[in-house]
């Protein structure tokens, strides 16, 4: 069965500090993994994806994610958080039916000045 878990409902970090938003997955076959961000009252915006190759994937707004096959994780990271990064973040995996995305429950990131 395909699934994604985001173990933290909320992550709090001070501006300028590094941030990590966690995601673990379960999938049959090769994982295709995505991160999205949602600002208040907006739809989801694509941040980055892992398909194959380098385990460190770089995306929009200075975000990157590290794919770890042995730990079945795909954590989102940023070296230096901004207050404007405060938003809801979703991890997703594409299932064997490649039309179907499985989303995590979301993690609210709060970056305090």
């Amino acid at each position: 069965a395909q699934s994604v878990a985001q173990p933290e409902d909320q992550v709090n970090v001070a501006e300028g500090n590094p941030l990590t938003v966690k995601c673990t997955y379960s999938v049959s076959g090769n994982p295709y993994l995505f991160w999205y961000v949602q600002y208040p009252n907006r739809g989801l915006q694509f941040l980055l994806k892992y398909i194959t190759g380098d385990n460190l994937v770089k995306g929009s707004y200075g975000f990157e994610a590290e794919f770890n096959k042995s730990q079945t994780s795909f954590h989102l990271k940023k070296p230096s958080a901004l207050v404007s990064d405060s938003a809801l973040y979703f991890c997703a995996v594409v299932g064997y039916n490649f039309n179907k995305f499985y989303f995590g429950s979301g993690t609210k990131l709060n970056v305090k000045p």
Partner: protein
Amino acid sequence: DVKVTQSSRYLVKRTGEKVFLECVQDMDHENMFWYRQDPGLGLRLIYFSYDVKMKEKGDIPEGYSVSREKKERFSLILESASTNQTSMYLCASRPFSGGQQETQYFGPGTRLLVL
């Protein structure tokens, strides 16, 4: 840039009303999706369509139906709205050609309140 638009940002309806949520995409994508988003539950797939007049049930289709008469437009219909359908509804589209590598492109969402 891909644009996915939804007909309303906010809607207030009464229990028992028939509700139509419209979604239009301008990139000739084959696949379109309807999700509902509730706090702590993430996004749950209601229905998706992979071609005109084609549809498949998602994880929570009960109480909903869909219509796709034209490629660019995908409508979600609440046959008889109930208070437990109060939620944020998100539409998305995705091209077929990229396979599993392709992202979905989301509309801004419709926040529906059923009284």
